């Protein structure tokens, strides 16, 4: 028989406001096994934990029940408390009387009654708990970073700096991501390339870091500390190790008219290309959809001009298999499509552009060499209208846009407006805003400068319609503060498009078994306390894949993710979750039902000799579970007809005891 201690938490008034905590403690005193029962204001506080520790020692408790907040909140805390007092941490059960009782019920009587029942269920369960010891598994001391933008770069550099090897997988031919496309960065107006490209070079030169560019993650198996990953290295038809990046092939390629992805299709590139001058790796890539040699077998010019002999038209996709201890997701974001926003005439006029396109237009390495020219006719615009919140902050049922604030638009729009006024003072710049959100160091000051020093016209209101007329764009908008409808003849309209997670994120999340929210952003293990970890052990989040972020935030999250990875890789062994399945050999039929439902391949079979009546023996096939691989879902326990397979910590008898306690 267990000696159970019950600890009822008030959680200030959070619980005590709706639940008569003293009555709960009193009622549970009479439950089987309970030898001690008390209540306290804050069980999770040091003083509260001391009450638990003392009671364990004083009453020789073998199991404890804490009636408090959700186990998702403080189960780990109380397990540690128990361990500190010499009690096996798995002898702790939590009755969730806050989130699932006091917070959802208003009436004291009902709340108290339910809390007592939940407490009884937890007592019934803890009576059947057994001490559990976690298994151990080795850690592969290598990290994988998926995505080679500033988030991935920073994470990789930080991990490598601690001495662990890192691989970066990037789908594009070069690392650098969105930041490489930017011109200047707010609020300091550093040139993006000036601060990013040295980091890219660091990555290339760091011997701990391998870059798999033009590659994708194909398959992920294994578990924390021991991921098995298959990476598909797409054929770039250029031998990466031989190509010197001289660019002779790029100059000679006759297939010149292909939209240049790096400049968002605002100019063209040849079939063989290097995305930009500072690309890492600086290696040419052949676009198989554009190359005449690959399509029709005619041409071969690049192979002839390549002095290094790096061109290889026969190259095939290659699968690389590697083991990793930790995986960092840094898949980043993209602006949403403007297809559905007819009112802004994005599809009708070349002079309606997104902010990222504007970024390329003003970038010295961009299609116009940094001269602000209209895409339609190359004239310099005299009136520019910036529209904020295009597709952000939409209603949940809106099919056009996103419900969330994209976070970066206010600041980059201020930056664009300011830089335009700075370089072209004769230009009229209007910014239509709903709210200007500038929480960040020096952010509001920056915005105020745009208005006060640079004379950007900020207008509270939204643009309703943009109509191309002749070479002008008729912009119809409202000015809410002066209660007027405005009609502006603009030369250029710049839309601050909402951002969304990269399309590759969803399939990747499935491979990683990492969870996502409805917007396809990766969810963090805890929104406040574990913001850079995915709930899936060993998977970490860096940058905009977790939510909209600017560069400073991305870099700090990248560093945080790296430090979490380092913390993991620094361990030689991982202690696993002891709540794993195990098979009772005496009852196992060896029927393979469990093996078929196991998502992790944790179950294997062996022939074992069993003693039978009359001194005979019998060899039977029985299941055995690898506790390091088992994640404890319990699918096998239901597939098992004989009930030989059970789950530690959530045993059949424990759950049935809970059912019985609740239904009593």
């Amino acid at each position, binding site marked *: 028989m267990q000696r159970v201690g019950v600890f009822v938490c008030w959680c200030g008034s959070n619980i005590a406001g709706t639940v008569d905590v003293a009555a709960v403690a009193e009622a549970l005193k009479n439950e089987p096994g309970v030898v001690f029962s008390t209540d306290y204001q804050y069980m999770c506080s040091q003083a509260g934990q001391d009450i638990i520790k003392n009671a364990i020692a004083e009453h020789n408790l073998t199991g404890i029940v804490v009636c408090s907040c959700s186990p998702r909140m403080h189960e780990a805390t109380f397990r540690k408390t128990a361990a500190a007092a010499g009690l096996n941490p798995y002898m702790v059960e939590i009755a969730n009387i806050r989130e699932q009782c006091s917070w959802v019920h208003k009436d004291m009587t009902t709340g108290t009654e339910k809390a007592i029942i939940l407490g009884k269920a937890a007592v019934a369960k803890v009576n059947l708990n057994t001490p559990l010891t976690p298994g151990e598994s080795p850690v592969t001391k290598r990290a994988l970073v998926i995505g080679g933008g500033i988030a991935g770069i920073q994470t990789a550099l930080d991990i490598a700096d601690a001495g662990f090897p890192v691989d970066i997988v990037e789908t594009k031919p070069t690392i650098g991501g969105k930041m490489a496309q930017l011109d200047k960065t707010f609020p300091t107006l550093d040139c993006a390339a000036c601060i990013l490209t040295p980091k890219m070079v660091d990555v290339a030169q760091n011997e701990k870091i391998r870059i798999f560019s033009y590659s994708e993650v194909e398959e992920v198996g294994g578990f924390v500390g021991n991921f098995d990953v298959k990476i598909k290295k797409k054929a770039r038809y250029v031998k990466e190790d031989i190509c010197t990046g001289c660019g002779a092939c790029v100059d000679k390629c006759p297939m010149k008219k292909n939209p240049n992805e790096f400049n968002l299709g605002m100019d063209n590139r040849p079939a063989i290309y290097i995305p930009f001058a500072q690309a890492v790796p600086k290696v040419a890539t052949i676009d198989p959809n554009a190359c005449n040699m690959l399509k029709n077998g005619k041409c071969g010019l690049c192979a002839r001009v390549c002095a290094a002999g790096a061109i290889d038209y026969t190259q095939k996709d290659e699968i690389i298999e590697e083991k990793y201890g930790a995986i960092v997701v840094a898949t980043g974001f993209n602006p949403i499509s403007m297809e559905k926003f007819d*009112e802004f005439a994005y599809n009708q006029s070349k002079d309606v552009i997104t902010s990222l396109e504007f970024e390329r237009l003003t970038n010295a390495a961009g299609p116009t060499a940094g001269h602000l020219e209209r895409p339609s006719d190359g004239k310099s615009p005299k009136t520019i209208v910036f529209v904020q919140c295009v597709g952000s902050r939409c*209603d949940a049922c*809106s099919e056009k846009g996103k419900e969330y604030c994209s976070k970066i638009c206010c600041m980059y729009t201020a930056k664009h407006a300011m830089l335009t006024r700075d370089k072209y003072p004769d230009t009229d710049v209007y910014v239509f805003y709903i709210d200007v959100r500038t929480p960040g160091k020096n952010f509001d000051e920056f915005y105020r400068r745009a208005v006060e020093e640079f004379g950007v016209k900020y207008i509270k209101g*939204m*643009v*309703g319609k943009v109509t191309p007329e002749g070479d002008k764009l008729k912009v119809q908008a409202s000015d*809410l503060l002066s209660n007027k409808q405005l009609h502006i003849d603009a030369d250029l309209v710049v839309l601050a498009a909402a951002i969304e997670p990269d399309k590759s994120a969803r399939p990747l999340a499935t491979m990683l078994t990492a969870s996502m929210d409805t917007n396809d952003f990766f969810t963090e293990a805890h929104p406040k306390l574990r913001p850079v970890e995915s709930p899936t052990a060993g998977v970490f989040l860096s940058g905009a894949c977790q939510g909209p972020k600017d560069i400073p935030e991305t870099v700090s999250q990248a560093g945080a993710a790296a430090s979490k990875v380092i913390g993991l890789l620094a361990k030689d062994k991982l202690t696993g979750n002891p709540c794993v399945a195990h098979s009772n050999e005496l009852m196992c039929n060896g029927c393979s039902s469990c093996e078929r439902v196991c998502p992790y391949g944790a179950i294997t079979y062996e022939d074992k000799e069993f003693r039978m009546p009359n001194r005979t023996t019998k060899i039977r096939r029985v299941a055995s579970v690898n506790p390091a691989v088992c994640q404890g879902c319990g699918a096998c326990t239901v597939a098992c007809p004989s009930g030989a397979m059970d789950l530690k910590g959530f045993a059949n008898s424990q759950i049935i005891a809970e059912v019985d306690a609740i239904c009593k």
Partner: protein
Amino acid sequence: MNKNFIQEEILRSSGVNPKKCMKCGKCSATCPAYDEMEYHPHQFVSMVENGDIEPLMNSKSLYRCLSCFACIDRCPRSVQPAKLVEAVRLAVVRQQGKNHLTANDIPELIDDETPQQLLVSAFRKYTK
């Protein structure tokens, strides 16, 4: 009739939740009849939200709205200002306390081209 009652009635008959409005003014920006209106679409929303309905009911703005539904189409928050305008119009009609039309008035008003659907909806709208 008390003010709250009218407000509730308008919210109910329009099915609009003005609290969803984030005051971006895109409805007014998009409105082709803006200059004709005393109260603009975004004001409609905020005035209904505040229960400030009396001035709306007395305003000519009501009948300047073309019901083109551009504001409904473009509202990022799915607030549907035009439906509010419609609901205020209806409130005015109902407050007049009598039927706007009787069945006998109809024959001389219609021509052969009038779709039946229009008659039915007019009846719904203009009778108690």
